[in-house]
């Protein structure tokens, strides 16, 4: 039976329309190719809906939305008989232009609906579908009726995750990836067997909402490769789809999530709400600036854009409208794309008020964790913004943080800085001083991410080599890479240096995987991928950033070691424990204990270069197959050292499980008593069992 509220009341150029439904925002397909359009704009005086046939420069109709179609601050119009798959849409707003009051309406501009569910304009990577300065990013209309076949977010406990950060394009764009659909969602699917072998169970995707690959202030050659330049918060990046031009980006991304879930791999998205691709003063009119600038952006009294993000503008995240907008976006990704979690870029901006100042109890932060749809969704904060505001460990329980202290202190210790030792111990414990209330699972432990060197470059370069970047940044010279090149800067034929680098990678990954908290590493670090010393490859759409899969063969022993470490972590729940308990357990040993080269003798508060730590893992507490001790000896000194093994109950014996200096894994399973001797800069894991 036809609904009584779906009969046209107006007509223009043969297009029939009527007052629309105020909610939901965005373009919603109703029966019989009717589409409801709804958009918020508080400060505008007029709003036109502009409709284009797909790919055409000029619109086929522009409907001036009558005043009687507006309720509150929402314009809504229902349009009949639309070939909606082949339609693009936008809005033209009129209103005040007075930047000191935050307004900059421009009726000559057509702008993108912030709630558009798919966007055209960059259908192919780094290619303009439409002319520069024209209406470039256009809304497209979809129906969210994907067949999930029983899938939903996996719900893996945070403490059990092993997170793998990757860039959709860079992961498989290089020909060495040998996938069919290079640099796309489908390319990621083709690599699932590899990811399963590696053992990770969560991917954190670098930005994949529709973003701008061009830098507005530069010519069109440099590429904003990373994608921290969001155009729209409800649309997947069309150029990451194999058939994006055919409007299949949504289906393709959903399929990627579904296939990853089928294989036990969760999906976390790196989201960038702190700023947008419209940048700051004099920036482009793409969407928010033209819809309602004052609502969406933090402005200074002098009419300039506040810039806490160091990217030109700052989203007004705690404006009630924007707060709802952000919650709506996250709900959408969780409910329609089955996303398991989010990593919030420059998250302290979620805690800035409408005056830009830090808030005591930021409502956005509170509401996200208590939202009915998002209550089980992982929320990970990058707890610092570009203006020096840090919120690490300060967001409510349930939030996690990227842990930069772990990142730096582990690298410093590994390169031989004894003074980093005491801080390292606290970090390996899961940083109770930072996350004491919420527990180790709030600490995302990482050593390398997209920011900074790859792990290989951490052991191959002392200095950044960013000569090919689009512009200079503090990362070039001021950033402390905490790296050491093992004696030679960059590539070398020196076998001794090459061997040491491999060992250092294994050492660092050993501590990462044996630490309490949630380990994360950068795609390719498991096989020595290099960015040739570039520590800020944001604009490198080239072999600098693309994974070189040939190195997987070259660094086979490193890959095998990392794979084994991940399997080891997954096999031992004591490492993944979700609390800071460190009393004696049912084996009558401390759950985690710290040792020097002599067992039980260790001053964790003074600088050191050698240490051991031991977990005790009783069946009773951890429901494993047998009681077990895990001992890790770490020699960061440039000289050989012997480590006395802790005495374990009679009948139990120590066996070597992994040794970073043993490239052939020949020592695995070797029974050992009394002491073990470690080469300079090496680490060893032993298992104590009956």
């Amino acid at each position, binding site marked *: 039976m036809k609904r009584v509220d779906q009969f046209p009341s107006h007509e223009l150029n043969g297009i029939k329309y009527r007052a629309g439904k105020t909610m939901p925002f965005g373009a919603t397909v109703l029966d019989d190719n009717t589409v409801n359009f709804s958009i918020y704009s508080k400060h505008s005086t007029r709003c036109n809906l502009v409709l284009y046939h797909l790919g055409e420069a000029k619109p086929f109709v522009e409907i001036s939305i009558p005043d009687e179609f507006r309720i509150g601050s929402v314009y809504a119009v229902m349009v009949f008989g639309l*070939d909606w*798959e082949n339609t693009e849409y936008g809005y033209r707003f009129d209103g005040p232009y007075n930047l000191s009051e935050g307004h900059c309406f421009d009726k000559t501009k057509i702008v993108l609906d912030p709630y558009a569910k798919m966007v055209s304009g960059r259908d192919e990577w780094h290619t303009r579908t439409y002319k520069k300065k024209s209406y470039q990013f256009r809304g497209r209309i979809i129906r969210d009726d994907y*067949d999930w076949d029983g899938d939903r977010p996996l719900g893996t406990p945070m403490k059990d995750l092993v997170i793998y950060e990757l860039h959709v394009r860079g992961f498989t764009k290089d020909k060495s990836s040998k996938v*069919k659909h290079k640099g796309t*969602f489908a390319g990621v699917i083709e690599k699932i067997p590899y990811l399963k072998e590696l053992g990770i169970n969560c991917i954190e995707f670098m930005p994949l909402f529709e973003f701008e690959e061009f830098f507005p202030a530069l010519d069109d050659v440099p590429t904003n490769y990373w994608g921290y330049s969001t155009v729209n918060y409800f649309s997947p990046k069309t150029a990451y*789809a*194999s*058939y994006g031009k*055919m409007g299949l980006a949504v289906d393709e991304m959903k399929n990627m999530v*579904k296939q990853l879930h089928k294989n036990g791999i969760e999906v976390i998205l790196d989201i960038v709400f702190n700023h947008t691709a419209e940048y700051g003063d004099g920036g482009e009119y793409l969407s928010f600036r033209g819809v309602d600038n004052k609502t969406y952006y933090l402005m200074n009294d002098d009419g300039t854009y506040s810039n806490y993000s160091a990217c030109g503008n700052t989203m007004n995240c705690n404006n009630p409208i924007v707060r709802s907008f952000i919650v709506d976006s996250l709900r959408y990704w969780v409910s329609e794309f089955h996303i398991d979690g989010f990593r919030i870029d420059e998250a302290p901006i979620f805690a800035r008020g409408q005056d830009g100042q830090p808030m005591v109890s930021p409502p956005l932060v509170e509401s996200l964790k208590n939202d009915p749809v998002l209550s089980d969704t992982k929320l990970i904060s990058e707890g610092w913004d570009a203006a020096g505001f840090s919120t690490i460990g300060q967001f409510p329980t349930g939030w996690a943080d990227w842990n930069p202290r772990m990142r730096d202190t582990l690298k410093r210790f590994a390169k031989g800085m004894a003074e980093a030792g005491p801080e390292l111990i606290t970090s390996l414990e899961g940083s109770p001083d930072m996350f004491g209330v919420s527990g180790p699972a709030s600490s995302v432990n990482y050593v390398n991410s997209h920011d900074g060197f790859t792990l290989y470059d951490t052991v191959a370069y002392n200095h950044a080599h960013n000569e090919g970047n689009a512009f200079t940044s503090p990362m070039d010279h001021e950033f402390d890479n905490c790296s050491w090149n093992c004696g030679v800067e960059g590539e070398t034929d020196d076998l001794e240096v090459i061997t040491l680098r491999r060992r250092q990678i294994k050492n660092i990954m050993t501590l990462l995987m044996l630490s309490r908290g949630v380990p994360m590493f950068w795609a390719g670090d498991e096989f020595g991928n290099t960015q040739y010393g570039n520590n800020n490859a944001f604009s490198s759409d080239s072999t600098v950033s693309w994974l070189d899969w040939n190195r997987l063969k070259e660094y086979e022993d490193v890959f095998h070691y990392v794979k084994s470490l991940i399997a080891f972590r997954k096999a031992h729940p004591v490492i993944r424990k979700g609390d800071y308990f460190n009393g004696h357990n049912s084996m009558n040993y401390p759950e985690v204990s710290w040792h020097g080269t002599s067992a039980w003798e260790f001053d964790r508060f003074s600088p050191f270069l050698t240490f051991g730590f031991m977990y005790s893992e009783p069946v009773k507490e951890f429901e494993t197959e047998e009681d077990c001790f895990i001992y890790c000896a770490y020699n960061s000194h440039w000289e050989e050292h012997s480590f006395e093994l802790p005495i374990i109950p009679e009948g139990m014996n120590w066996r070597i499980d992994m040794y970073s200096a043993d490239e052939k894994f020949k020592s695995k399973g070797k029974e050992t008593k009394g002491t073990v001797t470690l080469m300079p800069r090496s680490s060893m894991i032993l298992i104590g069992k009956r």
Partner: protein
Amino acid sequence: MLNITKNANGSNLTIGLEGRLDTTTAPELEGEVKELLPEVTDLVLDLEKLEYISSAGLRVLLSTQKVMNTKGTMLVKNSREELKEIFKVTGFADILTIE
């Protein structure tokens, strides 16, 4: 434009599609299918001459498959390579029976 050909043999039906299957033509195919399916137990969709399929077009195939799953079989055959890839990257290949 979409040309639809039908070849029925008892409860077996082969539908041939030629041209474009998108929002404008999908309702036409949907209508045909709705009318014919009650009598059909084995359906073949011959896509040899199908040049283009959109998201809406994919959904007509999928909903037809779901109906046929309750009463018989449906086979998609003679798809061009690009169509097969589209089925694969969108995940529809897991749901459709493709020859």
